């Protein structure tokens, strides 16, 4: 056609077979733009490689785009630049030892990942979690959701052009980092949730900081709404851009805010509630248009609902222990470990062998991460190490959707669409 055999032109320096098969599959893909099939007078077709190192692809994502002038005809996404083999590592660690790895998957909201693993293990091993721990987990999850959406907002608006937004959202994120630091000891890859509860209790200082944040944050959101909601530039860049139609959304496997912006009110906190989400009141924001602007509105409203949940949790926080007492299932508290023999032995056994779910048991548990449905499927063989741990990451499914919605858009909108879909490569590449 107008572009000769691509594989002859490509001279890859490394991973030859991989590059050739990628360009071949780009050629074979069906194009959505059918005009100018033969004899292109201006020779406007071009293959552009938005490589793994790029300022605006969120993390290491490679897009190979075939352009017709300014319009994208078809794209192919190449991922795997951040693949570690986390599932294989999981087969060699105990469930509690695996907790830090979960933090590093969706590294924008680590608390949700911790809770996902804990909830899955608690389901398969039938562990009772005390009430206070559930509420602390909910507060942590919602704060992490706000943190992730703040970063999304900062980077998406920065990619659209407004650079100072990045600084404002990072100022709020620093406040959240201070809260996490006070609550858990680490700024952002906390590993606070433990199987059977949480690591330590919420102190009064942390409570005061969370209350301050929850009181001052809605005003910030209002200010940002005032800036962006009537902004002609923001509207023109985001309206009708990257449309994901309602009838395609489920077929293509969209999840999270991308799915909710296309009309399906599917939120795991309402579908199969975990950790006392059925005792707090909140709404699930949904939009029908499916374009980037709808995703923006959905995420902004999710932040407001998160503040609502946090305030209800702070009011309802019950008193009690933060971890279950059962020594075979959860770590004993540090007092017991330091001052009693049984405590020390239990601590040792929990670290060495860990919690042992029954042999042959299989369980799946999903939580509503800020990006979508984050699910853990565990197959146990009776020992403290899982036989198979499969992580269903939402960004993987959303990237598949990205491959479809980029066709037909202008190349300059690519970064805004990627920002709107908000993938996290650590999670997509596991």
């Amino acid at each position: 056609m107008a572009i000769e055999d691509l594989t002859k032109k490509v001279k890859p320096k490394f991973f030859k077979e991989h590059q050739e098969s990628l360009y071949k599959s780009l050629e074979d893909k069906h194009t959505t733009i059918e005009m100018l099939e033969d004899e292109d007078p201006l020779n406007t077709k071009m293959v552009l490689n938005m490589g793994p190192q790029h300022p605006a692809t969120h993390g290491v994502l490679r897009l190979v785009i075939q352009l017709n002038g300014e319009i994208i005809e078809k794209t192919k996404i190449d991922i795997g630049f951040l693949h570690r083999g986390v599932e294989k590592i999981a087969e060699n660690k105990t469930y509690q030892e695996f907790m830090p790895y979960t933090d590093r998957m969706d590294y924008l909201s680590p608390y949700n990942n911790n809770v996902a693993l804990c909830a899955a293990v608690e389901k398969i091993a039938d562990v009772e979690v005390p009430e206070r721990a559930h509420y602390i987990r909910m507060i942590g999850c919602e704060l992490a959701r706000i943190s992730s959406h703040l970063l999304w907002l900062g980077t998406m608006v920065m990619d659209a052009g407004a650079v100072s937004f990045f600084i404002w959202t990072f100022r709020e994120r620093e406040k959240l980092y201070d809260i996490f630091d006070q609550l858990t000891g680490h700024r952002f890859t906390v590993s606070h949730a433990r199987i059977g509860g949480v690591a330590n209790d919420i102190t009064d200082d942390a409570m005061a900081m969370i209350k301050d944040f929850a009181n001052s944050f809605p005003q910030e959101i209002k200010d940002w709404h005032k800036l962006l909601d009537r902004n002609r530039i923001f509207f023109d860049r985001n309206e009708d851009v990257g449309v994901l139609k309602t009838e395609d959304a489920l077929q293509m496997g969209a999840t999270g805010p991308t799915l909710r912006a296309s009309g399906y009110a599917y939120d795991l906190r309402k579908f199969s509630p975990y950790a006392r989400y059925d005792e707090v009141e909140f709404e699930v924001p949904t939009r029908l248009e499916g374009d980037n602007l709808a995703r923006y509105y959905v995420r902004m409203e999710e932040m407001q609902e998160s503040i609502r949940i946090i305030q209800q949790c702070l009011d309802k926080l019950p008193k009690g222990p933060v971890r279950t007492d059962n020594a075979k299932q959860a770590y004993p508290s540090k007092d017991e470990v330091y001052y009693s023999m049984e405590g020390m032995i239990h601590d040792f056994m929990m670290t060495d062998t860990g919690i042992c779910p029954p042999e042959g048991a299989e369980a799946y548990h999903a939580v509503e991460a800020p990006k979508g449905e984050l699910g853990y499927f565990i197959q146990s063989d009776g020992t403290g190490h899982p036989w198979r741990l499969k992580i269903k990451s939402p960004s993987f499914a959303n990237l598949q959707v990205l491959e479809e919605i980029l066709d037909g858009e202008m190349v300059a909108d690519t970064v805004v669409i990627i920002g709107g879909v908000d993938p996290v490569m650590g999670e997509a590449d596991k």
Partner: protein
Amino acid sequence: MSLELNEQFQKVINGLTEKFPGDVIDVYQSTGDTFVRVTPGAIHDVCTYLKEEQHFIYLIDVFGTDRFTSEDRFEVVYNILSLRDRLRLFVKVWLPEEDPEIASVTGIWECADWFERQTYDMFGIRFTGHPDFRRIYMPEDFEYFPMRKEFPLLGIPGSIELPSSTPDPE
């Protein structure tokens, strides 16, 4: 084995066992989730039936497991969801070790595309009828399948190339 299923789920299982009497090998529950094991040849028909008649329109995940037994070593699990009835079902197949092949369900749910590529990349299970069958995480030059139990955690030295530590002249 006695299953505690609610009414709608019981209807789904009944419909499935009536329509495919020889193919549904096992129905069991584990920690509250329901699993159905079918023969590999029938997977396309079973999935079409589940999507069209029983309204399981959302495919959440497709993944593989290495059971490490001498017979039927690999297992492929489909995680599907019915939004109307609020049900989650797991459909499993067992595949033999030599040349594991199964029909692709991308014709039924489009999102199975990348999930099946990931299963191929990690386990080596081939999906016939897949529109774009390549590896997804590891580069195509990689010859092994990492998640198989015999592949060592630290990798095989020399299986994947590292760039040189001297500058490239070009």
